[in-house]
């Protein structure tokens, strides 16, 4: 007779202990002390309206369920309001842990198209939200310089910023190998 209750069994090969270790090393050093109290989920503004459960994410992180965590779109529902980090009775840097896991997810190729677009704008202009024609006009009307005194109007500064993004590998990360050197 088969078991009528389908159990979500975690297989040993799903567990990557190195995953937890990397989160600890990157700064969320107290994550293993999580007692699954659920305070993080209870204060989460995204969790109020979606199936995103911070507690579940922390549990999976501690278990080392790397593939499941990194592929999950839930990872991108955190608005980084830091309320969970403030309230955690174990003083776990919950928000930092999420950011660390996002970095790993991107490394594995999980990148939301809108985020890639903002990053491309950063690479080409130095601003994730660059100026547009309408706001050039508003600036002028208000008596401000039409272009702000940022990378928008300083070519050398933009080149420096682009150089930095090339050195750190950001350009490659966003634009991929194919366009490297283009």
């Amino acid at each position, binding site marked *: 007779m088969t078991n009528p209750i389908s159990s979500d069994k975690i297989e040993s090969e799903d567990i990557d202990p190195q995953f937890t270790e990397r989160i600890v090393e990157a700064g969320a050093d107290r994550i293993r002390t999580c007692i699954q109290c659920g305070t993080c989920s209870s204060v989460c503004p995204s969790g109020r309206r979606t199936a995103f459960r911070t507690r579940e994410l922390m549990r999976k992180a501690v278990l080392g369920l790397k593939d499941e965590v990194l592929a999950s779109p839930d990872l991108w529902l955190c608005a980084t*309001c830091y309320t969970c980090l403030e309230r955690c009775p174990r003083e776990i840097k919950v928000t930092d842990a999420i950011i660390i896991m996002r970095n790993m997810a991107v490394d594995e190729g999980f990148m939301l198209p809108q985020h890639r677009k903002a990053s491309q704008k950063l690479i080409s202009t130095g601003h994730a939200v660059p100026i547009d024609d309408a706001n050039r006009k508003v600036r002028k009307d208000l008596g401000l310089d039409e272009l702000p005194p*940022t990378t928008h109007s300083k070519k050398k500064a933009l080149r*420096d910023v682009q150089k930095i993004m090339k050195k750190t590998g950001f350009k490659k990360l966003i634009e991929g190998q194919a366009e490297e050197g283009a």
Partner: protein
Amino acid sequence: MTEAQKYSFFLGCVMPNRFPNLEKSIRVVMPMLGIELEDLEGASCCPAPGVVRSFDEPTWLALAARNLALAEMAGNDILTGCNGCYGTFKEALSEVQDHPDRLKEVQKVFDGMDITFNAEVEAKHIIEVISNMGADRIRELVTHPLNGIRIAVHYGCHLLKPSKNRPWKKTQNHTFLDELVEATGAESIRYKDKSLCCGAGGGVRGSNVAISVDIAKEKLDNILSAEVDCILNVCSFCHLQYELAQPQLNKELGEKRYQIPVIYYTQLLGLALGLDSGELGLDRHLVSTQPLLDKISR
């Protein structure tokens, strides 16, 4: 006290490129408080704590360090009017100050560029500088008290948290901004879930607009129940969220439920200092500020 303080004014992205009216109000009002703003020439995106820090932390740290270095080389502390930029600078500074190897890492990235950085600069928020002057001092400067104006104060998240790396006396239930608002003669009104996030940060607005706007809607509904004349904020990204979410919600609902004027602190203070609303960019809002201005001039 009367000695002018000078800062390198960091603009970020959203303020100069989407809401230049806020930038204008800061540039007009801060000198009236004895605070001199020097342009931080060649600054870039802070970079955004939601997307860039989430994508590649070392790139986030290096670009943040470059902006901080520009101020450090100018001999000033860096001053920002955006909670997101403030968060980036506070977190990046503590990272390089607490971990000398990370400071070396960014210095290595700057190799061959004329950028020197020793992490000796401080990052301040505009409201922090005003708060340090004290609400009493602001009250003394006010010439046109905004009596009878009811305000829903929105602090935002990164101004306050993580509290271990923020300058405020308390870790929650803050009152410093309410005090600065009330120094103008207006009244800060209590409302449900005042400390709730606006929903824009963390890259959520960028990728999950519906969820992001739904968080803003919860906040807006609570603010509507409090029957206020405006929302007051100190963050260009929270400002964007409240300015854009209201017309979007109205469109979706086919009604005009959400029409709460959204204003920035230096715009409110400017009015109380007797400045013209046009000079404060109050005629450049997506949600009309006219009902608020009409009530003030009454």
